[in-house]
């Protein structure tokens, strides 16, 4: 299912991984969902193909034989304004944070299922297609967020947020579905003092969850990415989790 907003041809995905078997399932997985695919096995090839074909999305493995993923990302980000999803490994939280702050739109930890990657891909492609302007009203579960009108409702009933709480929700809503690192959020909320204790952000998030989440102890909209940051889930991401089944 291609993104409805993509008025032109199906989005083009550049898959960069040195393992042919990984590229193979990614190719089939993306093509079955209506994407077009180009492949690259090395960093050099990836940069060449990116220049020639101008993909909408780059799926970038970090373990390339000829360069590390961070340097490929840096070179890409010099001119490339499409989306980038990084394929990462466990126990590399600091690497993930660094990559997100260097311009990766999201990451997926290996091993991963195709549905997980597709959900992330749709989220980051929507941003590219709409060129940064978010949807007028974001909806996920019972939550609706009207960024232009600054109105937040739960099941249609308005919710009153403090200015900082709204700013946090707005920052996550502007990048709906994407993970934002602690530092990215701190910069957004305390631009004059982004190196302030992350603790302020955590407490702010706790208060926001208390107001918006059906069960603040088990948040479904505003989720934590451990040691990395926060994410406001999209409806599709919400549907992918098994959470709904165990909710009271």
């Amino acid at each position, binding site marked *: 299912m291609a993104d409805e907003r993509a008025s032109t041809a199906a989005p083009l995905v550049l898959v960069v991984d040195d393992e042919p*078997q990984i590229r*193979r399932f990614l190719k*089939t997985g993306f093509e079955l969902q209506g994407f077009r695919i180009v492949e690259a096995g090395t960093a050099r090839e990836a940069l060449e193909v990116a220049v020639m074909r101008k993909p909408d999305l780059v799926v970038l493995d970090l373990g390339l034989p000829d360069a590390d993923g961070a340097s490929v990302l840096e070179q890409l980000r010099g001119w490339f304004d499409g989306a980038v999803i990084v394929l990462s490994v466990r126990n590399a939280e600091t690497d993930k944070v660094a990559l997100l702050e260097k311009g990766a739109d999201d990451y997926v930890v290996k091993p991963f*299922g195709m549905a997980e990657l597709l959900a992330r891909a749709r989220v980051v492609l929507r941003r590219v297609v709409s060129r940064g302007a978010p949807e007028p009203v974001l909806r996920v579960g019972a939550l609706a967020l009207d960024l232009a009108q600054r109105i937040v409702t739960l099941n249609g009933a308005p919710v009153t947020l403090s200015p900082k709480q709204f700013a946090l929700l707005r920052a996550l809503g502007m990048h709906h579905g994407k993970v934002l690192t602690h530092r990215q959020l701190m910069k957004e909320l305390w631009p004059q003092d982004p190196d302030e204790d992350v603790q302020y952000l955590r407490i702010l998030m706790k208060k926001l969850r208390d107001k918006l989440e059906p069960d603040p102890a088990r948040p479904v909209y505003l989720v934590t990415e451990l040691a990395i940051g926060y994410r406001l889930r999209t409806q599709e991401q919400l549907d992918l989790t098994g959470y709904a089944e165990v909710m009271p």
Partner: protein
Amino acid sequence: MRDWLRPLGPGPARGAYLKAAGLVLLAAIPTAAMLTFTPLETASALFMLPGLVAAVRYGTGPAIFAALLGAVMSALFYDPVLSVLVVTPSQIIDLAISLIVAITIGRLAGQLRAEMVRVREGERRVRRLYELGSEIAGAGDLPAIYDIVARHMGEELGRAVVLFAPNEAGAWGPVRADADAVVPGLATEVEAFAARAPHDGGTEIDLVAPPGAGRWLLCRLGAASRHGAVLAVAMEDGAAGATGEVLVQVRSILEEGARSLERLGLSRALEERQLRRRSDLLRDMLMGAVSHDLRTPVASIMGAASVISGAPALAAEPELVALAEAIALEARRLDRRIQNLLDVTRIRAGALQPRLEDIEATDIVNAVLAGLSERLLDRRVALTVADAHPWVRVDPVLIEQALVNILDNAAKYAPAGAPVAIALGRSGDRLAIDVRDEGPGLDGGEQAHLFERFYRGERHADIAGGSGLGLTIARTFVEACGGTIEALSGGPGQGTTMRILLPVSPAGATREDEDG
């Protein structure tokens, strides 16, 4: 031992004979004086004294000389006075006694002197050894020790000494470039010498003559050629005897160096450190290889299975979709097992460095539940959170993995369909996370051994696969964050509660009012 008993060189100098003669002349004065009141036979006995003194001070030669001279002198006093032509029997007896005394005392004094020389040489060696030893003790690594040995060698021998060692690329070059001592062509000789390992027929010491650079004595330092060094000692163009002498000195210094190293146990410590460094390197390589070679195929299997399970063509084949999903789930499970093996390697290597953060424990539990879907656990998880619970200061990623292992374990042992309950609340000055299952519970022995590596309850050996690593890892991770973990059970059939106690964040509660 008094100072007048000085050690002698190889032979008494000419001065010793002159001094012996002086002593004899000195003895003539009291002899002449004594002649006024004693008979000559008695007075001439005084001439034995110079021989005695000379024997003690100057050795046997000057003593015999003094005895003979004494006999001649005493002859001068006999009638006719100032003539040596008349020899009386008493003169001959005097001479014989003088010679016997001179030779006996001279030999004794000589032995004494030799003994002294040995003692002083021993003292000097001990002092040198001590100096070398204490300098080596202060050195941090092998290169520094080689440097010290080289310096001692230079000081002892008074010759140019150049220390050679291999660089990173394995090429040999001088370490401390004493510019005037470094000779072109020497490095090549050194490299060739270093390549001839002792066990391949090479020697510890060798004499080489690089073209146009004189002769050099090469000495091997250290056993392992990669971490070894070679000392080059400049040899003068001298006789073979001089070379042999230097060789003896060089050997003794090398032995002293080796002895100091041995005495300090340093050489073994250094070897062990090198061994450890090598094994660390090997482990990292192995971990990288395992990580890549095992996990990449697993990632391919899981990815491919997930593509199949989502394929539109299979929409009407729910059983095939379920099979493909099962493949994906098992692949994920396999990946977690591999992760456990890697974690154990990390723990064993002491490479665990917690990154502590102040965080709400619910964030960690939720991350666990999100990552470890209930389908993977194959059972329901109920979460209860006490209203007022403190934040914790832990490494969230380590605690997450510990919890995953504990949930995995609970799911493995509890009967199918029985839920697992997670409860979160304050316990004294700590935060408690209880993971309770309805499984077979624990008996006393199991409770004690539960967290030991590779321990798996014998009662359950048939039902539960896995390596038994999970709980060991969980405990290590929790303890690395300053927490504790214990297994509580009412006994067999009563279920098991794993209680994790985590340190509370000192800042968490105080900033509750903060909201701009």
